[in-house]
């Protein structure tokens, strides 16, 4: 079953895309390091500032510090931003500006290998950044229990799902101006996904809308895991992210093929 599926979504040659991106990034070490420091800055600024201001709050009948409440939301946001920048910006650059993929497709690699490779790369990147984020959470005392380790696979799922949708969006971008459109979508998602405060603070109609946001679903899932508050809803949240990512990926694969091999 799996062996029959693999040639459809790409071959082992896809790993050369990961290798390529890794080498390109190695020469841009500043960008790599900023990826590590970003979560640390988030957590520190919240820990020092907002945490004092807001104090503790009650989540699911349990009192937690604001930093412990908000950290999973920040992790979800960081996964979304990382995936969006990496896929939309960089893939657009390779697709339309440097035409890297055109030269790659003249080698044994094909369009599916390229798409699979980019997703693989996004996954690897998300794995490293989410791990470093979780380590920071633990070190700064923002993780109430060791359940926080379960945040790692969930953060990965978030990263991959957003990478899939990012890849799909990237095929619709015609010029740099269109990136404003993406910001226009990304910003409200960021601001209205109950990442900073509990969803119960929203008016009821807005709360219902927020449920649709994949970022909210990810933040809520990560928060549940981090606080060790498990429920059946979490399966639904994860499922929502899986569907979100798969829709993105299938759109991306189709549009990639149409653009690269007209």
């Amino acid at each position, binding site marked *: 079953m799996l062996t029959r599926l693999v040639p459809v979504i790409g071959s082992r040659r896809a790993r050369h895309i990961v290798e390529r991106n890794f080498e390109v990034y190695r020469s841009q070490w500043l960008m790599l390091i900023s990826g590590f420091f970003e979560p640390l800055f988030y957590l520190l600024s919240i820990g020092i500032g907002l945490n004092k201001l807001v104090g503790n709050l009650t989540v699911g009948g349990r009192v937690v510090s604001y930093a412990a409440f908000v950290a999973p939301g920040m992790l979800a946001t960081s996964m979304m931003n990382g995936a969006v920048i990496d896929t939309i910006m960089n893939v657009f650059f390779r697709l339309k500006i440097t035409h890297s993929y*055109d030269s790659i497709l*003249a080698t044994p690699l094909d369009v599916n290998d390229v798409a699979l490779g980019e997703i693989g790369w996004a996954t690897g990147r998300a794995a490293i950044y989410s791990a470093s984020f979780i380590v920071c959470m633990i070190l700064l005392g923002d993780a109430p229990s060791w359940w926080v380790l379960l945040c790692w696979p969930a953060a990965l799922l978030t990263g991959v799902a957003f990478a899939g949708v990012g890849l799909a969006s990237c095929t619709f971008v015609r010029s740099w101006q269109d990136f404003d459109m993406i910001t226009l979508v990304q910003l409200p998602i960021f601001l209205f996904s109950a990442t900073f405060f509990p969803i119960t603070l929203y008016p009821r109609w807005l709360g219902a809308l927020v449920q649709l946001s994949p970022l909210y679903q990810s933040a809520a899932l990560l928060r549940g895991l981090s606080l060790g508050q498990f429920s059946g809803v979490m399966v639904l949240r994860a499922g929502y992210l899986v569907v979100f990512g798969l829709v993105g990926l299938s759109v991306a694969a189709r549009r990639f093929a149409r653009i690269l091999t007209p």
Partner: protein
Amino acid sequence: MSERGQGGAPVVVARGLTKRFGEFAAVRGIDVTVRPGESFGFLGPNGAGKTSTMRMVSAVSRPSAGELTIFGLDPRTHGPEIRARLGVVPQEDTLELELSVRWNLEIFGRYFDLPRALIRQRTQELLEFVQLADRADSRVDDLSGGMRRRLTIARALINQPEILILDEPTTGLDPQARHLVWDRLYRLKREGVTLIITTHYMDEAEQLCDRLVVMDHGTIVAEGTPRELIDAHSTREVVELRFDDDGDGDASGDGGRVARLGDLAERVEVLPDRVLLYVDDGDDVLSTVHREGIVPASALVRRSSLEDVFLRLTGRTLVE
């Protein structure tokens, strides 16, 4: 002759090969056979369908209709196997500008699954072959157009391809840079590499191609060696006359003159900036022109070229 000699089975066979983009047909049912070791050209003006053809022959773009085999394999089912044995120099350079010359070659070797030690060795050899060894660690950004073109050629050779496909290899290069590229292509040809070249320069086609097709509007209008094409479609020599008749407007303004010139030549072409007389003995005809009292601003006698063949077949010039 070696295995790669001209005698072997054809390496590319196209029958009724067609490429459509929506309603528009860029390539309209062409028949082409390329034999191993030969250097085969596609000559045609902008929009003739050369690049569209090259992309199908590179096993990248799918034919819309017709048959195509490369090394006897169907690109629809054996794309990766075919591409592993091809080298492609695209019309536009697609190098990674922010990375080094060496890196651009090495990563390409990885796409072909070559072992790293072999890649390092070939990279060094290829850098020397295209005279870029001293620029190995430069960013591609800092290279001149001619150097980038050579790097693109080196990159296409990393897998030691049996066929090298070059889409306008020297467009935009200065004469010196062109000759350097031509020289490297001769060497590859001597080593037995099959070359498939597109160009809209007739001199390039005459220099490089054993055999060529003339393409126009997605179809093949003639096929043969450069010599055969010239013999079949043009005269031995051409007299080019320029007139600067302000009063009459363009060169064709003086109707009587063109008619009189027509009597002297096998064929006359009136272009916006000059009149071409197709003749066997140019000097002889030119002196007759002078005797007839026709005084051109300048006159030139030259041998027929593929440009004349193209003009004859399509009624248009190659480079506008």
